[in-house]
């Protein structure tokens, strides 16, 4: 049996009611899948929610809650948080923890999602202690949470504009109207 025969029924003709696309995109960012649930696209909403949140929380658990933190100090620019921010509400506690730590106060939740309190690029510091304790789990946790954030960017786009449908082959191969006259 050929691959084409196994191909499920195509769904390019389905019309999707996006309701308010801007609000849907905002909801999709705030909680993965919520934008699709608002648009009554329940199956896709559940799929995005399960895939993005399980990836994010698995990465967070893998790193004992250390892989997601917000820091923009000169010694420790945590660029990965920009990607993790794409997950929305689950990544927002990192901003609160950053405010608490920078204000000299104790972080909440046992220090989960809090930035390292002292960073010394030339020697031992809290960040190096995390790496020593967690070994590869810190980097793996970072990888998982970053990918979760980036995947949710795709979900946000889908909530805003609907599924990306490539142009049919016939349309792409068709010469421009000007060429047909010649």
């Amino acid at each position, binding site marked *: 049996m050929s691959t084409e025969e*196994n191909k*499920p029924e195509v769904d390019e003709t*389905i019309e999707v009611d996006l309701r308010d696309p801007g609000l849907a995109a905002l909801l999709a960012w705030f909680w993965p899948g919520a934008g699709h649930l608002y648009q009554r696209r329940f199956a896709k909403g559940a799929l995005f929610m399960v895939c993005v949140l399980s990836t994010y929380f698995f990465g967070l658990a893998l790193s004992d809650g250390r892989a997601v933190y917000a820091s923009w100090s000169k010694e420790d620019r945590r660029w990965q948080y920009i990607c993790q921010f794409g997950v929305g509400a689950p990544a927002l506690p990192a901003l609160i923890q950053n405010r608490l730590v920078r204000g000299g106060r104790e972080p909440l939740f046992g220090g989960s999602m809090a930035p390292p309190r002292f960073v010394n690029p030339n020697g031992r510091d809290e960040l190096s202690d995390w790496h020593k304790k967690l070994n*590869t789990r810190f980097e793996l946790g970072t990888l998982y949470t970053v990918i*979760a954030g980036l995947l949710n960017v795709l*979900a946000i786009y889908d909530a805003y504009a609907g599924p990306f449908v490539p142009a049919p082959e016939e349309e792409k191969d068709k010469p421009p109207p000007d060429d047909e006259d010649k």
Partner: protein
Amino acid sequence: MYPTLFATLLNTQLWHLVPLVIAVSLVYGATRHELMGPILYHAYRAAVWIVGFMAIIFAILFAVSWNL
């Protein structure tokens, strides 16, 4: 073959690849289609493509590092 492959996956960090490939493939498929059937079909093809691509990169790196 499969027990060896399974044991290798468990004993290295490679098993971390499995949930990532599943999640990435499903989300990618879901951004291209609306119905679950085509989404799963697209996700399957994307997963095969990702694993195949990584296998090619592995083979190239393995060949380059031969005798090092």
